[in-house]
């Protein structure tokens, strides 16, 4: 989660910068404080773009291995508290794939499969829900 933050923050920043300035000014000219303009006027306008950024960054961190070697340190056993080294899927795949035992290599493949499916389903469900959300809006439009 922490690794995702900078990517999301940068992405959100860039998207908000894309909103033309006159929209922001229109909000300010209505006597709305700046933070409320951003939260209630600019963000609803770019919500679908923000979801995309979120999806991309989840996909990205799910595959992140090298930083995890230094942060969560990797642990093959059960953990008793959160300060201990924690097992992570990408590191596990890495460890297993270079182990030399066939069984472990197979498990590494399975792990990779789990990762891919995880990302696939997250994206799939977001897209589906976005689709129905939009459809709902279109229906309301012509009511």
């Amino acid at each position, binding site marked *: 989660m922490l690794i995702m933050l900078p990517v999301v923050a940068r992405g959100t920043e860039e998207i908000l910068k894309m909103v*033309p300035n*006159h*929209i922001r*000014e*229109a*909000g*300010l*000219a*209505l*006597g*709305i*404080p700046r933070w*409320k303009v951003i939260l*209630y*006027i600019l963000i*609803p*306008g*770019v*919500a679908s773009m923000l979801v995309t950024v979120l999806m991309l960054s989840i996909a990205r961190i799910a595959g992140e291995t090298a930083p995890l070697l230094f942060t969560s340190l990797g642990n093959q056993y059960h953990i008793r508290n959160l300060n201990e080294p924690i097992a992570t899927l990408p590191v596990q795949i890495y460890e297993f794939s270079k182990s030399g035992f066939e069984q472990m290599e197979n498990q590494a493949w399975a792990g990779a499969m789990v990762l891919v499916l995880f990302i696939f389903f997250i994206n799939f469900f977001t897209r589906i829900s976005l689709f129905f959300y939009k459809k709902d809006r279109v229906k*309301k*439009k012509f*009511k």
Partner: protein
Amino acid sequence: MEKLLVKVQNLSAGFFSTIVLKEINLEIPAHKVVALIGPSGCGKSTFLRCLNRMHEEVPGAEVKGQILLEDQNIYDKFIDPVLVRRKVGMVFQKPNPFPGLSIFDNVAVGLKLMGVKKKVLYERVETSLKQAALWDEVKDILKRQGTSLSGGQQQRLCIARALAINPSVVLMDEPTSALDPISTSRIENLIRRLKEQVTVIIVTHNMQQASRISDKTAFLLSGELVEYEKTSKIFTNPSERKTEAYITGRFG
């Protein structure tokens, strides 16, 4: 005597070190339409934006002097610009409804964020849309996106949005320059009716428009107020030669 609503005293404004407005003194009576005319870059828009403290949203902006709105200097240190902007609404050159919000929400959002109750909200939206002469066209499609309307309708939506929070002054920065003649005349009629409720200050490049809708006209030239008179006088018998040259098109 007519009641004075806005008094501008020794107002100077600029960006960084460039001075855009020089010592403007102007008094605006209540329930009148005041037109600002002048060539591009003479400071009309800057003047307008000073009146609701939008000028300071631009980096490097500087303002000196004072503006009294109902005898209260809006540039006092303890005055919150957000509150000034609730009294002084603004309509921009390009129609700019909020994307992603419905027609209803576009008008209601200002009130909603001010904490107006839901029950009252619908009525207020209806009244402002009626004031902006848009109600009949949109009453069945309030859920549709504000951006799905035509340009002229969008501009009236923006006027409704500005009126919804009950301002006492509405500033308009060339509200019709992006619109076709029919939409323009609709908005002009609208402005004429609006002055019963609010004071309108409008920047325009169109002389005919200024003479059609305004009660008083101010002519600005390179940051200075050249002449400020009744519209009928400015367009028939201006006292300054510069004004005459500008309105007859023999400028330069």
